[in-house]
């Protein structure tokens, strides 16, 4: 089943949650920028302006965009079908995303993937992943 790229929806605007501006600015610049907990050094997903590990401060850092597939599911009922997944970033956290640019039959847990930005219909580009 070859991947036909579906239209990507977005809800709200990047200004809806002002604290996540560094993430969306990164998306526009083609960089994956996510928060890191200052106290523990852990990277955090989803983006937010406070650490869920300590309720302490975060710093926004660009990460490599390298990851592996933790789990996935192909939504065959959708038209076109799409492959939702959690990708574990090389820096640690697992993020929800879609796997793109491949035959979904080839997708496997543990597969190495690489960041790619795709435009959304009514919002900023968002991070997706394709086989590395």
């Amino acid at each position, binding site marked *: 089943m070859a991947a036909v790229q579906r239209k990507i929806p*977005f809800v709200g605007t990047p200004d809806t949650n002002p604290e996540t501006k560094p993430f969306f600015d990164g998306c526009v610049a083609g960089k994956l920028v996510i928060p890191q907990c200052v106290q523990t050094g852990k990277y*955090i997903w989803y983006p937010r302006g406070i650490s869920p590990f300590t309720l302490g401060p975060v710093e926004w850092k660009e990460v490599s965009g390298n990851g592996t597939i933790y789990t996935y599911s192909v939504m065959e009922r959708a038209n076109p079908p799409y492959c*939702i997944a959690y990708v574990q970033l090389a820096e640690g956290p697992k993020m*929800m995303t*879609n796997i793109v640019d491949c035959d979904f039959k080839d997708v496997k847990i543990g597969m190495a993937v690489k960041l790619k930005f795709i435009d959304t219909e009514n*919002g900023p580009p968002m991070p997706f992943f394709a086989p590395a």
Partner: protein
Amino acid sequence: MSLKGAGYIVGAWEHPTRKATDKSVTLLHAECAKGALDDAGLSKDDVDAYYCAGDAPGLGPMSMIDYMGLKVRHMDSTDVGGSSYQVAVGHALQAIATGRANVCLITLAGRPRSEGQATGTAPRAGNPSQAEMQFEYPYGPATANMYALCAMRHMYEYGTTSEQLAWIKVAASHHAQYNPHAMLRDVVTVEDVVNSPMVASPLHRLDCCVISDGGGALIVTKPEIAKSLKRPLVKVIGVGESAKNQAGGETELTYSAARWSGPPAWAMAGIKPSDIKYASIYDSFTITVLMQLEDLGFCEKGQGGKFVMDGNLISGVGKLPFNTDGGGLCSNHPANRGGITKIIEAVRQLRGEAHPKVQVPNCDLAIAHGTGGSLGTRHVGSTVILERE
């Protein structure tokens, strides 16, 4: 203060409808309330506490209290999806134990079938100020594919198979054939399940629950009142609730919040899983059942696939009869929330009022566990343990 035995379930009623084109959601709630009160032998004016969740139209509990003409001194509208009603039983126990309530009414109702909701397969855009919304909605999280993510990882880590998951549907269908109200009454085979169309890999159409209209209600009351009524005594001896989520990115999808809601419930009840005669286990999807059985301690982690095989969940056949009304997988998932029907069937079993073909002999201890929200992102598990006195 232990809540063990602080309350009894004296009224339990499930609406017989599965398609209610001619009724409002509020009317369904009220009909369920009347049904449960009649079942208990109580009247509307005996109710002094009301519990509902997000399926109740209006602001919190206010519109339903108004519509039904209640006068209450305690209320709670904690909305944690399909597990809200197990949570409500626990919260009712707290209110009874602290003298804030005598007769607690819990209602659920909805009509997603009449409203044509694509419950499991259409992503629903929420309020963008909900913190995670902008980082998830673009990727198409529906309901089915969120549970599928858990199933795929469980298969990877533990070798669980689609055929093993199918046995859960097979067991539910064996029970549903005796329920005249069930939406799906045909007995199915493992082959039927794994050959049904794929919805969200690895979950097939028959791995999913039904979409139905309907509802249910419960009456929880204090021991003195329970013992004055004419119904068999069903005592609440254990409750627990817990929330699980992505943990800042340290997401683990092979277990559910039952891992945390179960232990306090078992400790309060002073019993262990092997003591349970009947189990109502939330069954939005087959994988939901399998993970909860493991997490509640009915088998070792990762062994759920082997545990459910060969009819082990079929009443009269296996060791752990489950969802003998057919459950959400075959009978009813009103308002897309199956928590209350789990408790209702457990009460039927403990009273000896289940269908004779599925009634568990000498059923004195039962569990009713709920999972609300999305197993693949954030959800609440809630456990209720009941004893026939």
